[in-house]
């Protein structure tokens, strides 16, 4: 989780990731940033994020992103 927040902060420093619940819906992350984020996640956690999973619900908070990573790891 800490690792994830680190990545997020590097990509877009203006947001408080511990509390923010609308990263996508509030347009804090644009699509290019999400793309960087995905490539960072895939690199760091050794998972593959399929396009189907790229929906606002999965990327709206650090918590949900982490949950997605956990889910992908299990598969």
């Amino acid at each position, binding site marked *: 989780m800490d690792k994830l927040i680190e990545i997020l902060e*590097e990509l877009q420093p203006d947001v408080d990731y511990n509390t923010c619940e609308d990263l996508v819906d509030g347009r804090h992350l*644009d*699509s*290019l940033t999400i*793309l*960087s984020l995905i*490539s960072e996640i895939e690199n760091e956690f050794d998972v593959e994020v*399929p*396009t*189907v999973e790229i929906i606002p619900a999965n990327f709206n908070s650090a918590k949900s992103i982490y949950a997605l990573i956990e889910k992908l790891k299990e598969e």
Partner: protein
Amino acid sequence: MSYFDLWFAFLFVPVVVLIFLLVPKKAKPYILLFASYAIFFMVSNFLIIFLLLSTISIFLAGKKFKKLDGEKAKELEKEDIDKKLIKEKYKKKKKHILVLVILFNISFLFVFKYLKFFTINLNAILKVFKLEELSIISLIAPLGISYYTLKAISYVVDTYNGKIEADDNFVRLALYVSFFPQIMEGPISTYSETAEQIYNASKVTYHNFCYGYQRILFGFFKKLIIVDRLNILVKQVFNNYMSFNGLSILIGIISYTMLLYMEFSGTMDVVLGIGDIFDIKIPENFRQPFFSKNITDFWSRWHISLGHFLKDYVFYPVSLSKPLKKLSVSLRKKLSAHYSSLIAGGIALFCVWFLNGLWHGAGWPFLFFGMYHFVLILMGNIFEPLIIKICAKLKINRESKKYYGFQIVKTSLLVFIGEMFFRADTVRDGLRMLKIMFTKMFVLSKNEFYYFGLDMFDVALIFIGLIVVLVISILKENNVNVRDEVEKKHIIVRWAIYYLLILSIIVLGAYGPTYAPVDPIYADF
């Protein structure tokens, strides 16, 4: 036809509502489907066959996916098998169907919309090689083909991915594809956004009826008071731009962008208003686009449904495709995270904007329009780290109101120029207009202002109309829903507002012998 035709908004819709209310619940979806096909048939006659072909193709594809998934699950239950191999096998089968159905649907779009442009340009090439030229066929496209084809594609892709379950009910699917308020100009909603809602629509309450018509009337206000008036000025400037100075052209292109916004968002007001009547929440297509910080922000506020479509079905699939992923992984070793993903993203963005331009029409100005935005967005992203640094050095607060104001003005100017190319007859015309703006900004000639074709009253009305829309936009941006606020008011105030709105449309509207109404712009795409 246009959604602003009086008979449509004030005769057709009420009649549909009335019949809808009278029939039993089971028959209601059939009424809506019948109304949708009636509108389609009225405009496009037997071209309705293409709408049906599209609908049937995606219906069958969805069913096939479902069947294959069932077979896959069965086979996976068996023991002593290579699960991966089976998964691969079924994935391949599904993929073949997906590609086939998408090609099938796109081929109609290509034939009706792009064949002419394609042959004209092919002939230019053939001419160079002294080969025989092809004859040019221009066809009248079925109503809303650019909109319903995208809806159809989004449905097949979503069922393919398992994002949604394939629909067993043909009527529900057909209604999703062809729902009459959305057929002409969108929004391009996804299956999960509207299909259930439309199919399950069961009542029209007094409240919803009034609520919906409020919004429809506001759309008429935009169209009749602002759009058809501004049209006079815009036509003057764009048709005779050589005789104007830069300032007049600037006024002309700002007016054109306003016209486009008012026309399209006004149409959306009618569309979403009709949705409100049936208690169907059709997704918004605009979110105060002229409060955008940058071009990326602008496109998340303008024609939102098209942006979503291109993001979900072009941008991510392309940028996360295997070759591009490999590329960005290898680039990672040399560049920072920001720039390495920018290159993969940039290629995907190029596809997005190429298609965005192409979707708007088969013509070079539209492709130019797409590429223009591609370059702006890419530049914005490349220079972002630099701008942050510069701002930090100059001690500019990037969160301040002043900075936001500066961003709004900058973004709007870029948008105005983009829409100028969108409207210009050829790219060269657009470039010439740009040149006049840079070289002859304040050179006065006798043509200025007076010849815009508007009298003092028209100009005043345009301003008043724009201010009304601006105030409502500011309120909306601050999360105040004006319609809900009006509802809370006392009945006298409320009715006074309605009467003022209706009578101002009737008396001050730009219709009758001296005005030429604007044809629905987005219906041609």
